[in-house]
């Protein structure tokens, strides 16, 4: 008899997440980002533990650091972390907290938690990689309520003016912004010269298509719409 092992896949993510949430009921809160994360790490971005220090690697900057269970689950599935670490997460013994720490957790490009930092840092990263003549993609994930932070809008205005076409901002929209975005989130980016796509945040093919459709000369904003927060 032979035993085969295979890399965990998308179907394993609920189980991995439940190792942190402890039950099935909190999946929704933990999982607003899970499909976006999976498509990015599985099919779009050129990154992995084996290329973690290559200067020309693609970069994923999780700006919305709240509820990182799906992120940690994907990092386990892609070999950055060991599954055994998840049950103990957020304890003093663990390197995995409620907000990821880049200094402690492999695969984490930026420490996050305070909202409104990922996209502005991504501007600098895109500028730096362009100056170094790398063709790397830079993707940052933000939440629709996170867009309330004004620092994002400093970045949204500048990104297209500087022609940062390697930059993608994916906004996971669970309609949790207190005052909302009249005309839709995409319009906020489009006004400033971004290429925009609004798709279901649960539809892997639509997400993949949105992430990979060419957008020459312009940064890309993908609005990934999921169920309203608290609507489950």
């Amino acid at each position, binding site marked *: 008899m032979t035993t085969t092992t295979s890399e965990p896949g998308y179907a394993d993510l609920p189980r991995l997440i439940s190792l942190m949430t402890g039950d099935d009921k909190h999946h929704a809160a933990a999982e607003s980002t899970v499909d976006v994360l999976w498509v990015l790490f599985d099919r779009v971005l050129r990154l992995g533990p084996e290329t973690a220090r290559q*200067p020309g690697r693609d*970069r994923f900057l999780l700006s919305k650091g709240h509820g990182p269970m799906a992120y940690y689950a994907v990092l386990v599935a892609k070999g950055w972390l060991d599954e055994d670490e998840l049950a103990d997460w957020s304890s003093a013994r663990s390197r995995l907290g409620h907000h990821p720490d*880049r*200094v402690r957790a492999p695969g984490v*490009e*930026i*420490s996050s938690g*305070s909202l*409104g*930092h990922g996209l*502005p*840092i*991504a*501007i*600098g*990263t*895109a*500028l*730096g*990689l*362009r*100056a*170094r003549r*790398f063709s790397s993609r830079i993707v940052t994930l933000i939440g629709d309520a996170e867009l309330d932070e*004004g*620092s994002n809008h*400093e*970045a949204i*205005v*500048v990104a297209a003016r*500087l022609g940062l076409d390697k930059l993608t901002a994916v906004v996971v929209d669970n309609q949790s912004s207190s005052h909302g975005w009249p005309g839709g989130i995409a319009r906020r980016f489009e006004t400033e010269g971004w290429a925009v796509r609004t798709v279901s945040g649960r539809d892997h093919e639509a997400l993949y298509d949105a992430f990979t459709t060419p957008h020459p000369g312009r940064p890309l904003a993908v609005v990934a719409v999921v169920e309203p927060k608290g609507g489950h």
Partner: protein
Amino acid sequence: MPNMRDTFLSTAEEIVNTDPDVAVVLADISAASLAETARRHPDRVINVGIREQLLVSTGAGLALAGLRPIVHTFNAFLVERAFEQIKLDLSHQELGAVLVSYGASYDMPMEGRTHQAPGDVALIDSLPGWYVHVPGHPEEARRLLLDSVPGDSRTYLRLSAQENSAPHLGVGLQTVRTGTRGVVVAVGPMLDRVLEATEGMDVTVLYTSTVRPFDAEGLRAAVPDVADVALVEPYLKGTSAHCVADALADRPHRLLNLGTRRDTEVRIYGTLADHDLVHGLDAGSIALSLKEFFTG
């Protein structure tokens, strides 16, 4: 010789022209002066407009991509307005940058409180591991900038319109005058006025433009067993008091702190000299404070 700000800009231009790993990030301030350099190096001289949060975050992102950022604007906007970006995007991420400010505590006195940031060094001092340089002469500013670019340190270089007549290019506490009654520490642009104020006094005068890390050993070496120490800083009074207290923890000592006032917000406009007087940082006021302290 050009003033500190012009010296910084010409030195930054030299660095960008010769080091392909250095980028300068601006928020409109000084952008006109570096316009020609920006035309030559559009990828590495970046003006984000009047967006100071993005200014610092962009510097952090450049460091994340492997470049060495020099980030510059007035200190009220660089340190106070964007402090969370300094704390999180640089310190917490463990990313390096050279932050260069102009404005000091009241370099633009006619602009009023909005353009004054006497608490900038105290704010940076709340974060571990930063180098803080407060040059007292344009040649010191140039040297400190050139010394800060190699490596990946987090460095704050605080330029000022006020300067001393001669440079002192050393690191740590440098002995300018020796005496027996006590020690006066002059920081950056405070040196000339401290020398004038202590003329004829039997005190040691130490000078530093490199204030963090604080040269504790240099202070211990300069003071006798029972120490009277006066600290004359060009920013918030007592910013370095905790450093002196730690350095002399095992010795009886008294400490006089001179610096910008904590007890009131100074709302006058006027000139640099007007503000020196209000804060007690002109040579005459310093002399009176020191005489009272050392004879007390």
